[in-house]
Structures are given as C-alpha cells and as structure tokens.
C-alpha cells in the first residue's frame, strides 16, 4: 500500500518527488492561481515527476484555460520548461506537431506533454484529442479535471457531475442543476481508442499521481492521464480543504482511480469501506440545493448509485488491485 505521506522520512527512492529538496519546481511560485487551487498543485506534481524521470528532457503544450492564464501573463512566466500555448481546442494536435518535429530533428528522447482542463479536453478539444489517439501520436496528454469552466466563471462542461450547480445550471424550482443522464467519460473514450496507457489520478494521492506520470512519460504512443483537481471557487468550499475534497471523492467511489493498458483495465486502487456520497456532497456549495429546506434525497441517491456502479465497474472492492 502506497503511503499518502510526502514527508522526508522515507528513503529517497520511496519519497515523493514533491518532498525532495532538488525537485525541479517546474511551475514556480508567484503565479496567479487562486488560493487552494487543485490544478496548480497537480500541474507542478505532474511536470516535476516527468522532469525527473526524463532528466529534464520534456516540452509542454498547454491549452487555454485557468492553468495557462494564471501561469503565463507577459512579461511573466512561471514555467521552467519549454512551454507552448496555442488555442483552447487544438492542444492535442499542436502536441502531435511538436512530437513529430522533435522526432524528425533526432530528439526522440524529448517527451511531449499536452495539458488542459476538462473544458478543453472533454468539449472543445475532444476532436483533436481523438485524432491524436487514433494516430497513436507520441504524446502524454494530461487532463486536469475540475468539472466545469472555472476560468470563465464556473459554467457547465460535459465533465460537470449531475445535479451540480454551475453558472449555467443554476437550480430553480423543479430543476436540480446539471441534468442526469448527460456528460461523458473521457478516460473510457481514451480506452476505447486502444491507446497504450490510460490512468486516472487524484491530487489526494500524490505518490500515486507521480508514479502514473513517471510510468506514462516513458511509454511510447498516446498516453492519457486524467487528474481530479478540486476548485475552491467553483465548487464552493474553503481553500484549505482542497486535498480533503479530492480524497473524499475517491473514498466514496465518485472518482475511481485506475489504470488501463491497450484499452483493458489492468489495475485500480481499492476503496476500503466506501464512504457515503452524502458526506462528500454536503460540504460543497455546488450541491447545497440537494440538502436543507428543499432537500432532494432522490438526487443524492442517484449520485450514490453512480459511485456504487464505479466501485463495481472499476473493481474498487480490491479484486483487481495491484498494490
């Protein structure tokens, strides 16, 4: 069982990259992310881990979104790696071009990471992402999923959970927020392309996230890692609670952690004694309308069923565990 600890008591080889004094700090301090931003934390972990195992031989292509806006406003730049931003919906295709150019120039060891939020991955950039998977281009695509368009003021994306309140799914009388039966599962879509590697990860488990990135970055072909990154502003919780929020999503089964190779599920992180979704939902303002005066136990039950289905589907009860 991997420890959740990232302290410095562990042996160097077991310690998290983030606990090492000589980590690259790829996304340096001074950027403009909100307090408690899950995406900023995840992005630093991802790029630092990739930087370590490749000996710094990486280039990053970034989609438009929070991560791009808060990290790189001329004349300032928080990235300590070669970094390119083109547009919102074309990141995977740009990364294809970058990877091809490095290969052509004889720098095949330079690994290319494409990264973006759920809006650029699930919605506007899905065509380009699918094209990249289809051609099995040599790129690691990382999606930082905070489950809505946070940069433009919290609007619904197709990664927004059912019944969540966003600026475009405001609950009113008879309308409980984002409708049930909608949304899409991009990790499953990635798996359907049969690409070499697909994984989900959470900033609540940084060792696991780093391990998956370290593994994925050294593979060839298209790889997809999907990271759950809570957003204090969009979800409505205190900035100090980001990690707890991510952990609760994993512990109730709403965000399953798994790995798949060539389209086949090969491992998942077991959820011992799954917690009820109620605990996770109750502390977020985006689900507040499901509780209180006009409580909607049916909606909470529907979300509970989604979590229970995940536990079955991704075999989170332990049978597939490789830990």
């Amino acid at each position, binding site marked *: 069982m991997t420890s959740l600890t990232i302290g410095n008591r562990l042996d160097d080889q077991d310690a998290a990259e983030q606990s090492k004094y000589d980590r690259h700090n790829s996304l340096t301090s001074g950027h403009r992310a909100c307090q408690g931003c899950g995406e900023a934390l995840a992005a630093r972990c991802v790029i630092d881990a990739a930087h370590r195992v490749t000996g710094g031989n990486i280039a990053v292509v970034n989609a438009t979104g929070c991560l791009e806006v808060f990290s790189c406003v001329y004349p300032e730049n928080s990235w300590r*790696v070669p970094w*390119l931003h083109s547009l919102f*919906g074309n990141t995977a295709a740009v990364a294809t071009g970058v990877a091809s150019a490095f290969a052509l120039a004889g720098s095949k060891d330079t690994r290319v990471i494409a990264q973006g939020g759920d809006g650029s991955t699930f919605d506007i950039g899905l*065509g380009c992402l699918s094209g990249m998977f*289809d051609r099995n281009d040599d790129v690691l695509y990382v999606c930082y999923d905070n489950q809505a368009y946070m940069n433009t003021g919290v609007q619904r994306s197709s990664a927004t959970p059912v019944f969540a309140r966003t600026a475009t799914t405001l609950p009113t009388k008879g309308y409980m927020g984002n409708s049930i039966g909608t949304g899409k599962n991009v990790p499953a879509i990635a798996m359907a392309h049969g690409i070499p590697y697909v994984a989900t990860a959470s900033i609540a488990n940084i060792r696991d996230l780093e391990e998956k990135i370290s593994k994925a970055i050294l593979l060839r072909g298209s790889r997809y890692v999907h990271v759950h990154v809570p957003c204090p502003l969009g979800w409505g919780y205190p900035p100090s609670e980001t990690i707890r929020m991510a952990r609760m999503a994993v512990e109730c089964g709403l965000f399953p952690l798994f790995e798949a190779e060539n389209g086949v599920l090969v491992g998942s992180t077991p959820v011992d004694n799954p917690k009820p979704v109620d605990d996770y939902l109750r502390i977020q303002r985006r689900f507040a309308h499901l509780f209180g005066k006009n409580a909607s136990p049916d909606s909470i039950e529907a979300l509970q069923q989604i979590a229970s289905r995940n536990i079955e589907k991704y075999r989170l009860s332990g049978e597939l565990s490789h830990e």
Partner: protein
Amino acid sequence: MLHQLEGSQAIAKAVALCRPGMVCAYPITPQTHIVEHLGELVHAGELWNCDYVNVESEMAAISVTIGSQAAGVRSYTATSSQGLLYMIEGVYNASGLELPIVMTLGNRAIGSPINIWNDHSDAMAVRDAGWIMLFPETNQEAADLHIQAFKIAETLQCPVMVCVDGFVLTHAYEQVDIPSQEMVDDFLPHYKPQVCLDVANPLAIGTMVPPEYFMEVRYLAHKKQFEALKIIEHEEKNFHEKFERHAGGLIRTYKTEGAETIIVAMGSVLGTIKDTVDELNAQGGKFGVVSIVSYRPFPSEALEAALAIAPHVVVVEKALAVGIGGILSQEVKLCLKNPRKKVSSIIAGLGGRAITKSMLKHCLEHDLHWEKILSWEEDHREIFLGLNHDTIKKEFESVKNCCCKQKENQ
C-alpha cells in the same frame, strides 16, 4: 525541366523541393490533389525526412503545423473555402505566434449555398489575419511562388498563404518548368528557426498579453507587413536572377502606358483580361492592366504609381462584401491620392461563374463607358458581370408564394 502537369501536381512538386519536415492537411476540394501528391512523394521516399500527418479536421491540420513549426521544423498545409473558415482561429494564431508556415489556399466560394467552384471569398475572409497573401496568375507562377513563399516567410518570421484559383489553376494541365533540387537549395537555405521550443533554452511561447503590451504587439505586426513589401520585391529579383524567369513581386503592369482605363485584378482571370484588352486596343481602345500579386501586404505605393496617369480604374473582383460592395475596389480607392479618379467595380465569377472575353468586352465598351460612369447614381456602384435577371425575378416570386402558404396552413 518542362513537364506537362496538373496545377496541383506542380505545386506539390515545388513544395517538395522546399524540403518541408511536416505536411499536414485535411481533404477539401479543390485543394486535395496537392496533398495527395505530397503524400505520394513522402511515402515513396522521394520527399524524405518529412512527416505526413493525416488529421481529422482543418483545425487539427493548422494546429499540427503550428506545433511542428514552433518546435523548429519547416511546415506546410493546404486548404480551401470552408476548411479555411474551420481553421480560422489557428490562422490568426499562427501569425500571432510569428510562425513561418506556408499554406496553399485553393480559392473556392464559401457557402451556404454550398458551392465547390472558384472565387476569392475564402481569401477575403482572412485578409486581416496577419498572413502574407500572394495570388499567382498561372500554374508556373503558382509553383514558383511556393518556393519564394518559404523564403519570404522564414526571412520575416511570418506565415505566407499562396492563393491559387481552385480548378482554374489547381486542375488545369499546363507546361510547367520544375526547377532542379540544386537550384531550389541554392535559393532557399536550410531552415534555421529564430525562436523555438528548446529543452536547452526553455522559453514560453504564446503567453497571454495584457492591455499594457497588446497595442505594441499589433503595431509590430503591421510594421512587419511593410517590411514584407521590400522582402517580396527583393525575392522577386533574387528569383529572377537564379531561375531566369519572372514570378511574384508586388504588382505587374501590362500596357499601362498611355492607357485611359486601367483594369486591376488578381489571379488567373488576368489572362482573360489581358486578351480582352489586346482586342479592345487593336480597335483603338486605350486600356491597360495591373495585376496585384501581393494582396497582403497591400502594395499601396506601387499601385498608386502604376495607376497615377489613368483617369479611370476598373477593378475586376471575385468576391463581394454584401452590404458594401467590392472589397478589392475599396482597397484600391484607399491607396489613390487623387480623390477625383473614378474607380469602378466589376463583381465577377462568383461561385465559379465563367468570366469570358465577350462578357468583359461588352462590359468595358458599353456598361463602363466614360460618360455613362460620370452620371452614375449610387445604386450603380458596382456591376455584376453576367447577372441573370430572370433568375432573380423567379426567385422573388417563389419566395413570395412559399411564405404565404405556410402561414395559411398555421
């Protein structure tokens, strides 16, 4: 060496001689034959050290070339019409990032109604996108301009679009002189990027630019276009010296000396116009022709000088800005210092409508007669060449009948 070639093949061969490292496009008529042929050359190993990427959309096509060019590799794409509109966000992005991508635009009308034939509506839709836009007149010039395009793009760090008339040029078989690899290598040096993604020197490319700096960025893009005027002229001379034939430059003049009416146009229609002018002049007419090769940057000074003497300028244009009129004619007017000079606009060839000598001749001899023009009312600002008024009348009638019935049913 002379070859009997389809325009698209000639362009593909010229592009291959420029040794791009990335060719990426999405199928759309009438551009498709160009990239089909390039694909063949790459897969047969004739164009080596080049990646040919089949993508799922034009947005991906421009994006892959943005990525490869930003990582330091000479990159090429091609598109037409709807495809150009689908990638338009990337078109602006490429020039903003100062990436010297070269694109062939197989000029085609824009729908709806869907129409695959030639006009210049697609090029006009991106006229402010910060690309250099060159319009060849013949297939020979189309091939030659691609060789110049890479040179101009890389000298300026600015993307270049070679706007080739769809079907009229892309699908026409003509004799084209394809230069040797040695000659092209001598003209176009190995690509050395000025700024690119580099592990040894990490840079951020494509940062957000706040209001404190944005005006300056746009001003510099404008300045770069003025610099391009000189580079385009320089490369035309350079090309002529090495290849011993003329191609490109800003504008070209034909029988403008002593002309009372000068016709201005772009692209393949110039051949028909020159033939028409020859016939009219043989009968005592005083007509001349100015071809605009460089549409962006717009060659204002060269054009003003070429048109200075003629009292009457007629612009034949293959695009229409609905609600205002001709686009090229407005730009020609802007660059003329003499405000009393009469500029007429002939909207012609939209959606592939044929432009014939007899149509042009009739128009220039009768509709655009000097006295007639001076007494024109506002609604005669432009002439639609070969417009069928019966079709328009019928359409008005059918719309009237159609609307009423639906309302009655409700």
